[in-house]
């Protein structure tokens, strides 16, 4: 019934890449938050979030990205966001988060 979200973690030499596949909404967001927090705390490396297969996100998900960025900054690390679809990039621009994250 609800949209699903899959998360694939890949450890690189100087960062951790997380590929999101599916939808981030109120139903899937709590799980995403816990996983991203865990990845940041365990690795203490820059986080690369690949959104190539991310089909949907709302403010709940954007809020989690912001909270994860705050956590990463505690370790002086950053978050890079890759391959945003146009409809999702639009939300980053509307909310001003395109200036907060490094988007490629």
């Amino acid at each position: 019934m609800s949209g699903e979200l899959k998360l694939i973690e890949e450890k690189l030499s100087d960062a951790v890449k997380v590929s999101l596949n599916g939808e981030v909404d109120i139903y899937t967001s709590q799980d995403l938050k816990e996983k991203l927090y865990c990845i940041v705390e365990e690795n203490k490396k820059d986080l690369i979030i690949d959104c190539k297969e991310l089909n949907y996100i709302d403010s709940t998900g954007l809020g989690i990205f912001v909270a994860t960025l705050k956590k990463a900054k505690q370790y002086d690390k950053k978050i890079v966001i890759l391959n945003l679809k146009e409809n999702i990039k639009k939300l980053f621009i509307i909310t001003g988060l395109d200036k907060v994250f490094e988007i490629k």
Partner: protein
Amino acid sequence: MMNDNIELILPFKAEYVSTARLVASGLANRIGFDIETIEDIKVAISEVCSKIVRIGSKVADTYKIVFNISDKVLRVTFGCEDGSLKCIFDFENDQLAIDIINALMDSVEMCTENNYILSMSKELEEIV
């Protein structure tokens, strides 16, 4: 001339917010919105549903979404038997959601004296 109301009644459960998106997508497509606009409408509706679900209700089990579809306009109205569900968005903590809804829809009515929680609409743009 088309002027139909479609009502969707959902429990206060996160897993059914995607159902609202699915229904919105089908109805917006029927009016003739393009894919990009349909995505915008889905996000705006989902923002409201998510907030309603997060607040919940002590007296009602469900909330209602009424989609009014006409030839050029989709109007979406959210309602609930629980009259305490009125001004659901907190301008301090929900700024992301408020910005998104206001940017994506043509008109948004929040915190009104009417007997619904929130109403918003999107008009089909004429292709010249």
